[in-house]
């Protein structure tokens, strides 16, 4: 075609295609609306998927400077002549929030600067993040501000140094002589930019995000396909009539594509609008434990164009591909080809997907911790398993139908079985959203409890109102063999005089019920028992009176025992037990009081104000500026924060998935009843009772759903186990079965599905009422 005449004819054809696509009033409008809604949801998820991984990477990149040391992996470029800096990174807590605390001392006039700072704070000065500045202004000094030695806030930490808008960060300035000899202080000449460190967790998180998105997207796709199939019989009749009137295959394809593209364009536009509207809220979701800056959820131009053009294009192509039967003959449904049977070979893609998944898991487990660990292979294989499940669905549905037919002795079961056997693809299509949602939910449920309970165990032994602070470090050369344990800590702990002053100040805080001093034992006074020590640090004994230990809930002595030794290296890792360490000789209280203070455990009423006052005194008083004073809540949060948030996110995603899948089921069942109005009415006219039709409709959906849900659960548990293997030793995650809430949710979800099917029964009764037995 060429020239203005050809263009005019082409424009007429496009206009005709659009007009014919939108003819049909209410039915077309309903179908287009549902399809557009489904595509809108799909586009929203695709867009968030496109920004999710870059956003997670942005988080990691923003946090890279906290890994600064004397030997940076990827040092940031710095101005010529920049001076080195004494740098000591610490952590603290305040009412459940983490504080990143960096002690710095410039060693020259132009020190290297971390991101977010235009100048390094000098001695007695502080640079704080905006959120911390607000917190300092709103909190009594004895609960927060006094920790920083009375330093004056002279600068603000910019967004470049913050992972999220609400992050609490402080740079405290010191004189070099004050900071130089403190443990953990490095002389740094550059700032780290590598995101390395904890890659196993980041890779696992990326994997879970990809798995979650894939799991969310599939039910949306099912909804779109189900909506597309609405009125399929009438659409095929319409297109067949057009073929009879002389429409070419290309014209019919154009009409189908126009209908699909119309819905897709509407859905895509709505999807982009939804993404932009939801992005600020989405940024507040702490997927990896921290919210995002909205700017980190930046959509690349390439992704935007690909989605904006790709979704409508794929919709059009899918619509054209679905027209094969009508393309064959203008006689349309009157001469349709015999439907292909659901052959067992449709199970091959699922089997191949599972094999591929196993291989990918093994590969990722082998390369765990490496920057090049191919976690995307596992995500891709996971998608293949889902696709395989979709392809195998009709076969499995057919098998269920055959089983029903062989086992049933009643008319409804027989009718249901024959209907499913006649078109198992349609039978599976109705329930596919829920089957896939069950699969994804089971995968998530199979992963979450194991990872949540992974890193710190036994912490329930610590009372919730206890604040613990250590003043020493474990021995630099850990010794794990049994024998007399002579401790030579890297930091000697507080002197008796310092300890006395500190203990007195702590005891004076309102709300403090007791203070337990844990002292460094004299040389040669303790013995490490035989056993296997698998903790991160070697056993490290500290001694306290039995009365004080019991008051703090840290240990219970034998009758007659007056003092006891416990393993301090496990003190803040959540265990009281551990290796058996024994005292070789009694230590009188008077002698104990002369020993350095290795750690202190403060029993409080649990009041947040009291806990923070205790923490402030401990932070201000610790000379070594070692690990923060922690409560059990702090330790649990540190261990599980990211994964707890992920679990919450998974629950929300699961709820959305179930809603979408439920909509698919309702649309499919209702649409199916409308299409089968004539044969169902004829059944009524032939004498089938209304109750029998009801049981037939319920059986057609409920029985395959329950059977395939069981298959999904089994597959999901297997895939979850694989994900944990892929996470590997870096995440330390043994497999655990899903918790009771999952099983309750599963039962509730399946029950709700049956109720959704039951909700269409009034439509069935109305359509098949004998008064309505007219088909013209």
């Amino acid at each position, binding site marked *: 075609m060429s020239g203005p005449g050809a263009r005019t004819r082409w424009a*007429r054809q496009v206009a005709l295609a659009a007009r014919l696509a939108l*003819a*049909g009033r209410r039915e077309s409008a309903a179908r287009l609306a549902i399809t557009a809604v489904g595509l809108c949801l799909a586009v929203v998820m695709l867009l968030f998927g496109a920004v999710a991984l870059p956003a997670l990477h942005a988080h990691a990149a923003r946090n890279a400077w906290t890994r600064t040391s004397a030997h940076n992996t990827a040092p940031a470029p710095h101005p010529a002549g920049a001076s080195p800096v004494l740098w000591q990174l610490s952590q603290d807590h305040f009412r459940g929030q983490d504080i990143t605390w960096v002690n710095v001392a410039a060693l020259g006039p132009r020190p290297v600067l971390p991101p977010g700072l235009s100048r390094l704070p000098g001695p007695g000065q502080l640079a704080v993040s905006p959120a911390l500045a607000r917190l300092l202004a709103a909190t009594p000094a004895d609960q927060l501000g006094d920790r920083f030695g009375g330093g004056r806030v002279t600068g603000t930490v910019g967004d470049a140094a913050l992972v999220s808008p609400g992050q609490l960060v402080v740079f405290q300035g010191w004189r070099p002589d004050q900071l130089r000899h403190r443990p953990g202080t490095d002389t740094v000449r550059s700032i780290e930019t590598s995101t390395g460190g904890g890659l196993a967790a980041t890779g696992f998180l990326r994997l879970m995000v990809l798995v979650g998105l894939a799991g969310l997207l599939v039910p949306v796709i099912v909804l779109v396909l189900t909506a597309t199939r609405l009125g399929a019989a009438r659409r095929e009749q*319409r297109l067949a009539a057009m073929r*009879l009137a*002389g*429409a070419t*295959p*290309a014209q019919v394809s154009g009409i189908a594509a126009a209908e699909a593209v119309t819905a897709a364009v509407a859905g895509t536009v709505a999807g982009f609008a939804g993404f932009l509207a939801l992005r600020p809220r989405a940024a507040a979701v702490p997927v990896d434990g921290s919210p995002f800056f909205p700017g980190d959820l930046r959509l690349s131009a390439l992704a935007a164009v690909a989605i904006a053009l790709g979704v409508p294009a794929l919709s059009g192509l899918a619509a054209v591909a679905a027209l094969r039967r009508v393309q064959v003959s203008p006689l349309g449904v009157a001469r349709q080809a015999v439907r292909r049977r659901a052959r067992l070979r449709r199970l091959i893609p699922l089997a191949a997907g599972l094999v591929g998944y196993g291989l990918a898991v093994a590969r990722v487990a082998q390369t765990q911790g490496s920057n090049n660990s191919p976690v995307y292979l596992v995500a891709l294989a996971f998608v293949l398993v889902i696709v395989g499940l979709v392809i195998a669905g009709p076969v499995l549905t057919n098998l269920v139908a055959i089983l029903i037919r062989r086992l049933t002795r009643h008319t409804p079961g027989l009718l249901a079985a024959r209907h499913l056997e006649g078109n198992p693809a349609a039978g599976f299509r109705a329930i596919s959203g829920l089957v896939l949602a069950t699969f994804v939910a089971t995968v998530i449920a199979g992963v979450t409890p194991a990872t949540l309970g992974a890193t710190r165990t036994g912490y329930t032994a610590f009372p919730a109102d206890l604040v613990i602070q250590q003043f020493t470090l474990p021995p630099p050369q850990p010794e794990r063999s049994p024998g007399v344990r002579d401790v030579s800590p890297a930091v000697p702990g507080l002197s008796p005089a310092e300890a006395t002053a500190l203990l007195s100040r702590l005891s004076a805080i309102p709300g403090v019920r007791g203070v337990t001093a844990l002292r460094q034992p004299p040389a040669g006074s303790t013995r490490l028992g035989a056993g296997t020590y698998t903790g991160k640090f070697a056993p490290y004994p500290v001694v306290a009176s039995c009365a004080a230990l019991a008051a703090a809930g840290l240990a219970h002595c034998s009758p007659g025992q007056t003092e006891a030794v416990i393993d301090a290296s496990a003190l803040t890792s959540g265990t009281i037990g551990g290796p058996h360490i024994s005292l070789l000789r009694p230590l009188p209280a008077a002698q104990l009081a002369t020993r350095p203070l290795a750690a202190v455990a403060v029993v409080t009423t649990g009041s947040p104000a009291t806990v923070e006052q205790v923490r402030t005194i401990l932070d201000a008083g610790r000379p070594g500026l070692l690990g923060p004073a922690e409560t059990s809540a702090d330790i649990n949060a540190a261990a599980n924060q990211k994964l707890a948030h992920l679990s919450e996110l998974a629950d929300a995603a699961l709820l959305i998935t179930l809603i979408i899948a439920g909509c698919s089921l309702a649309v499919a069942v209702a649409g199916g009843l409308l299409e089968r109005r004539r044969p169902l009415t004829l059944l009524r006219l032939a004498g089938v009772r209304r109750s029998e039709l009801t049981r037939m409709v319920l059986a057609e959906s409920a029985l395959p759903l329950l059977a395939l849900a069981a298959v999904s659960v089994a597959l999901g548990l297997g895939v979850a186990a694989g994900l944990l293997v892929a996470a590997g030793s870096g995440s330390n995650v043994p497999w655990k079965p899903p918790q009771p809430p999952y099983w309750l949710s599963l039962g509730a979800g399946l029950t709700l599905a049956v109720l959704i099917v039951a909700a269409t029964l009034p439509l069935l009764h109305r359509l098949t009422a004998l008064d309505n037995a007219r088909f*013209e």
Partner: protein
Amino acid sequence: MTGTVIETRDVVLSFGNTPALRGADLAVRAGEILAVMGPSGSGKSTLLHCLAGILVPDPGEVHFDGRRIDNLGETGRSALRRDRFGFVFQFGQLVPELTVADNIALPLLLDRVGRKEAYRKARGWLGRLELDGLEQRRPGELSGGQAQRVAVARALVIRPEVIFADEPTGSLDSLAGLRVMQLLTGAARSQGATVVLVTHEARVAAYSDREVVVRDGQVTSLAATP
């Protein structure tokens, strides 16, 4: 009447393992109205579909206007249906979502005729086929006879050379059916169109110039309608 306009030569067609036509030979003269009769399942509708280019025979040939059409591609056969053939079937030929005017104009619109011209021609048939006042209704809002008259109008709007009618009165009462046949044959004769009519009703076959009988997939007898 002039020479043969459309014919089949030794056409064989099976649906799966079921033979529908076993060497059917039929020649239709230009301008004649031919009734194809036979018992149910004899292959008469299949023969009509082969003549119309809807079905392609396994072996055998179909010729129209001196040209073989069974070896045309789908686009070529679609063009014949759009430009030179008209169809009046028992069911399923009208687009339920389109109005009467839309349905009648459809072949012209598909042939890329301008919209104004297409609807002008379509409206021209409304009066001739007693469809005045119905142009904005949809097929579901019409009686059976009205819907068939719309189908006749659509078949005739392109001034076809051949009209294929498969049981056009099968779903109508006798009065409505006879009226449709009167209008169809009258309009066809006025245009000089050839009509191939499949029916099992003698009253309908009485409108034809000639009858053939299809039995067991073969055209077995030819008789001129008295």
